[in-house]
């Protein structure tokens, strides 16, 4: 196997560009866990422990990628935004998580036996 072929089979090539930042990955993990759920923007911000600005940027990026849908509404005259993962987002998260697990698994299998 050539060096080029080895590079292509490395699990990092399965990583999804849209999920490469910790905030975006955590967001999708929250939205597309075991079951598809819809989460209010502020609640999601608190859950993943970030700020409004970072979350807004992440929402824009994932929305562009087609990984989540944004729904806006009002609760007692206060605007509120809900986020929900799309089937494409759920699938992308699955592939990305598998690649991360493969990277972790690869490192464990290459650890010297004690």
């Amino acid at each position, binding site marked *: 196997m050539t060096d080029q072929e080895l590079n292509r089979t490395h699990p*990092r090539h399965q990583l999804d560009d849209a999920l490469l930042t*910790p905030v975006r*990955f955590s967001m999708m993990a929250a939205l597309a*866990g075991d079951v598809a759920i*819809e989460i209010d923007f502020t609640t999601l911000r*608190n859950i993943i422990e970030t700020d409004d600005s970072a979350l807004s940027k992440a929402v824009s990026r994932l929305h562009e990628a087609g990984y989540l849908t944004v729904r806006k509404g009002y*609760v*007692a005259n206060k605007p509120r935004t809900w986020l929900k993962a799309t089937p494409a987002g759920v699938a992308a998260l699955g592939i990305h998580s598998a690649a991360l697990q493969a990277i*972790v698994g690869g490192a464990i299998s290459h650890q010297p036996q004690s």
Partner: protein
Amino acid sequence: MMDSEHARDPESTRDMDAATAAQLLDAADRVSVRVNDGTDFRTPALIQGWGAAALFIYVTAFLLLFTAPALDGVESAHGTTFVSTLVMAILVQSQLVHGARHQILISLAAPLRGWKLWLQLIGLALFIAIAAASVFGVKFGWWVSLVVAVCITAPLGLASLRSAQNARGNPARVPLVSPRPPLSRSARVMTAGLGAFFGVAGAVTAMPNLWSSVANLFLFLFLLLLMIGWNARWGLPRLGSEWGQRQWVGYGVSFTLLVALTLVVATTSLTTPWVGVIGGILVALPLALSTLRLRRQR
């Protein structure tokens, strides 16, 4: 392209090592636990349960109205008043419930699937078929209405029970929902107004004359206005999002009384102005009281 994007993103982790990957996976696990802790199972269970009950009452009443033998002296034009009263009630209900769902900060998005979806579709098909056949004079037993109502509402009822089971098994450990603020002035006015709307709709059903048909038409136009302005400050979804337990109980009683009054008037000879006025006041009262009690509490 990917590399250039990667280069632009300072937080990007494409060249990650195993430790970074493990950290990300751990963070994702922690996030999942927090989401589970904060998921509100109780509110969806309540909404689904009340929705199923209201739909059952509506479908049963609607079909009973169609399948009941026509009374002497009740004009066909007035028959449409009964039907439109029920339609108005369920349209209001759907808008309010839409708003109530907005209260949920984390909700499971689980649409009906499999046999439950099929059961509901069969029920809906039967509902339309019976309603259409009744127009052409085909008669059905009262039990047919019950069977169809059960077919349509059972899947929702089962979904509600499942949510209730989840609520019991997963009590929210993190109080994500802040205490409910008192009802705003506009919401109090709209709630009392909705009570008056239901009251007038109920009163009109007991007055079989031309004016009642005209009044019913105006009520429908008013409802149409409410539905067009659904996103406005005075829209029904916003009202539903602001209501607390008292308002929902008040609404449930008003809704049931309105449907009951319509059925009683349609199937008996109690079509007098007094029945209309007293019935209308009784229908309006629970919703009006739900705002007054809240005001006293403040």
